Each structure stands twice: as C-alpha cells, then as structure tokens.
C-alpha cells in the first residue's frame, strides 16, 4: 500500500488495529500526524504515560492511576455496589450523578454464544467483597443485551440467597422519546416494568 516507506506502512498497520479504523482512515490519520510533528510527540508521550500509569483498581476493577481508586477509598456509601460490565459504563453512571455508592466492574458479560463463562469475569472478586460484609444492596447495571441480561440473572442467583437486596436498572422509553418511534422490544419491556404513580 504505502510502497516507499516501511515505517509508514507499519504505522498504518498499527492504526488499522484500532476499533472503527479502516485502511482509508488509517492512511488519513498517518498523513495528518506526519504533517504535525508536535502532535506526534505529545501523542506518543501520552500513550506511554497511560500505559505506565493507568491500571485496574484491585477492589472494583475500574480504571485508575491510584490503587485502590478514589471511589473505593472515598467517603461514598459502602452499603451499595453498582455492578457494570465495563469502565465506560461506570463513567456513564458517574456522569449522571444519580448513584452515590461504590462500583464493581465485571470486565465483560456472560455470553452463551461466545462461550464467556463466569470464571472469565470478575465475579469471584465481587463475591469476596460481599462476603467481607457491609453490603446491603447490589444494583445490577449490566447492559440490556442478551449478554447483559444473562449476567444479571446469574448474579441474582448468586446474591439473592445471601439476603442482599438485588436491584436492576429500569429499562424503558428514553427521556424525550416519542412512543410512536420506539421499537416494540423496548415498549414491551417498559410495559412489564411499569410503576405505580
């Protein structure tokens, strides 16, 4: 592809490994970087810095620079744990400001079709946190995909016998959503989860 530069070919190859980046985009990015040497050093530096400093919190498995993370050590409600699939989901809930407890990041979801079993997730670590005591509620905030629901069902089976309150994020019509345009699956679920006024 980039016939006369081996290093450029290599860069394009690396960029193409990123999600959502194809051959054309990779080439465009590579040429853009070549034109701005200052950006290149800043980018290279921050990549190395992230790799050196960002790790997973050994308690909640969210991303952090200090282990344990500030959420795990801060004065947040330690009686409630919100379980999410990925660190990005934790950030989404934090952005909402609606939850004041702590988190647990599973680093994935159970998948019957992809053979992802409980042992591949941070489930035993979650159970150890709960066995340590003090947790009264677990909020299951896994996605509403088949995988996310399978994960929520599996955790419910583990947690319910421990006498812990297990809750699931509500699932329904998005704010500002026009019923007419909402897909049938969502309406079906919203109807099932309707609440008393």
């Amino acid at each position, binding site marked *: 592809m980039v016939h006369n530069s081996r290093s450029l070919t290599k860069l394009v190859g690396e960029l193409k490994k990123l*999600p*959502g980046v194809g051959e054309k985009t990779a080439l465009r990015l590579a040429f853009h970087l070549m034109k701005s040497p200052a950006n290149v050093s800043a980018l290279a530096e921050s990549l190395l810095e992230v790799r050196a400093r960002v790790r997973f919190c050994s308690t909640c498995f969210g991303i952090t620079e200090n282990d344990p993370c500030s959420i795990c050590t801060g004065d947040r409600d330690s009686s409630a744990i919100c379980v999410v699939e990925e660190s990005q989901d934790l950030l989404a809930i934090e952005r909402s400001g609606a939850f004041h407890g702590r988190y647990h990041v599973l680093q994935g979801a159970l998948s*019957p079709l992809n*053979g992802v079993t409980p042992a591949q997730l941070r489930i035993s670590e979650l159970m150890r946190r709960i066995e340590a005591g003090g947790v009264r509620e677990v909020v299951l905030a896994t996605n509403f995909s*088949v995988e996310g629901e399978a994960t929520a069902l599996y955790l419910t089976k583990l947690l319910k016998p421990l006498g812990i309150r297990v809750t699931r994020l509500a699932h329904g019509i998005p704010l500002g959503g026009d019923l007419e345009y909402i897909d049938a699956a*969502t309406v*079906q679920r919203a109807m099932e989860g309707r609440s008393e006024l």
Partner: protein
Amino acid sequence: MLGAMDYREADRLVTLFTLEHGKLKGVAAGAKRSVRRFAGVCEPFARLRLQIVLREGLSRLQGADLVTVFPGIRRELVKIAHAGYACELTDQFLPEGVSNPRLFRLLVSYLERLDGASFSASDRRFFEINLLKILGYRPALGQCASCGMELTGEEHYRFSAAAGGLLCSCCGRVGPSVSPQTVALLGRALSSGRFGAVTFQPTSLREAGTLLDEAIAGHLVRPLKSLLFLQELGE
C-alpha cells in the same frame, strides 16, 4: 438472528437464518447508534421481519421489524443458554445461502417453546434429533448401523457415532448403552412434530443425551462455545 456482534464503530455483524434464503451474514449499519432502525433487534435469537439487500459475502440490512425478542427466554438463564445453543448448533450445521424451511420451522418452534413453557431438558433432545433428521444425519435406530440386522427393541444396544447409529449385540461391544425405552422415545420424537409430545424420564434422558451429544459432536467442525456455557450451568 442466530448471532450478532459489534462491528466497526457503530455497526453490528449479524448471522441470520431466513425462511426464504437460508443462512446469511450481513451488516446492520449504525445498529449500535440508530435507535429508530435497529435498536434492540440485533440480538441473538430475536425473530424479525427484514428488509435486506442480498449480496455475495456480507448482505446489507436496510431495516428490521421485530416480531419478538422472546421475552420469556430472556427472563431465565437456563433458557438463554439453551436458546444460544440451538442457534449456534443451527449456525454450524447450516451452509450459507441454502433455504431450509423445515429447519427454520423447527428452530422457531423450539424458541417459542422455550419462551412460553417451563423449561424441560427433553425439549433440547427433541430439537436435536429432529435437527439431525432434517439435515440427513438421522441416526439409525431400527436396524444395526453395521450389519443391517433389524433391531427388535427387546435388549440394550450400543451406539456408535462413527457407524451412524445403534449396533446389534454382535457388532457393538463398546460405546454408550441404550435401553429399549430410550430407543422408543427417540423414535416417537422423530415421528411427532410437536414439542412437548415426548418426555424423557431421567434414565432415558441421560441415555438419549449421551447418544445425541456424540452424534452431534461427530458432525461438528469445531466445538460449540455455547456448550461450554451449558456445562458451566450444570446442564
């Protein structure tokens, strides 16, 4: 929808089993973002009415109307696991682009059964043996798969996946043993077109399970991931 996975920034790569065109692979562009067109429908085992542009390789989904996501399946882990297994099994056995309305109806019936009835392990075995039959892999139950001698159904026989069926007492000395009751139940599962018509008792369920697991494994190119998941759940 036999399977779906994230693809590129916002797309889903889907494996479909269509009534008219058999198995297809396709791309639902923007399925992760576009709430209107695809939200919640590009999910394993959902039943859909599709608008699709057929192409060599990857077809293109234009739109999808949901018939059902099978909410009853999605409420129970064991049902999710079995529905996933049925979809993966179908996916692996089915060549692309060959329509197979009988298998389509069998899979839909099984998913409807899982969705609406309480879970029964017999249904899985009913699905499996009928799948094998439709695909032309029906195990020989009436005569010895080696010498062709008629099996009268009065004694225990051995099963051989390699031979493709039961073996008479002369031909078969090793392999899983199958009782006359189990053979009769498997025969009924093959002749009845309805889930729930045949219930295997524990011993027969175990024997039929071993027989079918081996028969299926003999035809698989690669191991099924969903089987791992089922085993994990103790199924």
